[in-house]
């Protein structure tokens, strides 16, 4: 027995597990999406591609193209994710920059505090905000005292006093930013930390202003980290349904995830739900592979360095 087979044998349980519970499971989505449903509106999957029924998929795509309810949900999701990503980058970049370059002897503590939210249950972090933003919550009282509440009402960003948790797009965007920011900061930190300080010093010695050195050396060198980090948090945001459910619980802020959740888990039409899931997964496939490729090339660089 050659030793190469020992190693393949070791991989076997993992390969078998992922084949059934990842690949076959994903194929079940395809088979249901291109299947049919019986009179009880339960799905009847068509496993053979030659039998596929494209009716539900076409209806789903038409719904999106022709401005149906799915279209509105898609657009709203893109808007929420775009706002949350921009906010996250705006806050996360300076924080990661500080941790990587200026934290000095506080670096260990700062990193610990930045990593901590990573390991706090996401639902608990949302519960914390629900406590704060409930009509008599500390956050609501604070925002009312300092005049933010009135400002938001007059700017039409808030419907009524104390109504932060009642279908407000602003609250959902803030909650998404809060929820996913820690996952952006860590890759940003890693890419900023890797930059060789001497490259920035060289730019300065050659006459670049500090701002020039930042925009022409640091920022371009941290771009892979920015893109990878943004992709990393965009992916779960596109599939999120619990954040809008928890901090808004209104169909006015429904995202794609809410639509899929309602159709599949809550069970109103699993076939339509599978078709929508497939559309979402295919739309995100590019981002997924982009992220995997970017981490792999970073690994390769680390190994050759």
């Amino acid at each position, binding site marked *: 027995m050659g030793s190469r087979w020992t190693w393949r044998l070791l*991989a076997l349980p993992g390969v078998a597990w*992922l084949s059934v519970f*990842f690949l076959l499971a994903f194929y079940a989505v395809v088979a249901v999406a291109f299947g049919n449903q019986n009179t009880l509106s339960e799905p009847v999957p068509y496993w053979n591609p030659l039998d596929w029924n494209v009716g539900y998929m076409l209806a789903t795509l038409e719904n999106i193209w022709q401005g149906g309810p799915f279209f509105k949900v898609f657009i709203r999701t893109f808007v929420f994710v775009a706002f949350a990503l921009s906010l996250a980058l705006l*806050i996360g970049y300076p924080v990661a920059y500080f941790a990587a370059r200026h934290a000095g002897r506080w670096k260990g503590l700062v990193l610990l505090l930045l990593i901590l939210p990573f390991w706090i249950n996401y639902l608990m972090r949302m519960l914390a905000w629900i406590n704060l933003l409930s009509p008599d919550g500390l956050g609501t009282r604070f925002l009312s005292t300092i005049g933010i509440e009135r400002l938001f009402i007059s700017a039409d960003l808030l419907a009524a006093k104390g109504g932060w948790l009642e279908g407000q797009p602003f609250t959902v965007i803030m909650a998404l930013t809060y929820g996913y920011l820690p996952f952006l900061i860590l890759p940003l930190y890693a890419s900023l930390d890797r930059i060789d300080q001497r490259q920035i010093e060289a730019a300065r010695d050659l006459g670049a202003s500090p701002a020039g050195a*930042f925009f022409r050396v640091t920022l371009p060198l941290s771009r892979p980290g920015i893109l990878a980090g943004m992709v990393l948090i965009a992916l779960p945001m596109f599939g999120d349904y619990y954040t809008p459910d928890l901090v808004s619980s209104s169909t006015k802020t429904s995202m794609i995830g809410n639509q899929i959740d309602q159709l599949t888990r809550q069970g109103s039409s699993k076939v339509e739900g599978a078709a929508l899931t497939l559309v979402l997964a295919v739309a*995100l496939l590019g981002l997924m592979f982009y992220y995997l490729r970017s981490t792999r090339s970073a690994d390769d660089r680390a190994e050759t360095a």
Partner: protein
Amino acid sequence: MSFLRNPWGKPRFLVLVTGLYIFWSLIPVALAVLFAFNDGRSRTTWQGFSTRWFTGASGSVFHDPALQGALKHTLFLGVVCVLVATPIGVALALGLQRWRGPGGGTVNTVMLLPLVTPEIVMGVALLLLFLQVLPFVGLGSTAQAIGQVTFTISYVVVIVRGRLVSIGKDYEEAAADLGAPPHDQLLRVLLPLLAPAIVASAAVVFAISLDDFVVTQYLSGDASTTTVSMLLYSSARAAPTPALNALATIALLITLATLGLAYLVYRRFATSDEAAAMAGVEV
């Protein structure tokens, strides 16, 4: 923005942003933990310190069957997930590391995909799998455990592989030169060297399982398969008592204690770079 004018000066702007961010990211949770100890039903008005929501005679985590059941079920899934995902993941990491020839690249990509697939896609896929292909398993504890194992295997592989790369092939080759057969190279040389990474990945798997929500909710069956995360989701808006905060606090402490212990073990045996990687700086 002073840090642009002089990157070696005092970066007041950066200190301010970082400080405000850390305050904003942690204080809400700290307040939620604080109100778990409130001596009243309010989650917004402080009425004195008490542990009644943890151990009190009625409605506390230790006496309310729903809360207690959710905690027990969450821990049960965590243990099962560690026991199944860790060995499979360690074996897969070893196998992939030495996989020469066709197929290795594909397996590697498929192994990494669960890390980037939005959880709702995995949730729907597993839900349809258990309803349409494996109805004899059905929804409930078994399905939940299988679902969690499916995406935690990848974390084990990533952590163990990091350690394998830093160990290099020298020890193994030395063992082979001294005449050790392949299974001895594996059991007596590699596995002991991998021990810290195995401990670390078991802790990470446990923590991820405890915090998981989407897949666990999609594959849940009756009320007995409710986890802490699911209870947080379903009760957070339904005028809960501070007992919900107490439940979340207990789960949080268990997660942090597990990771803290594993981190100490890891730091004792591995280099600081790898310890940082384990803490999540580079996934």
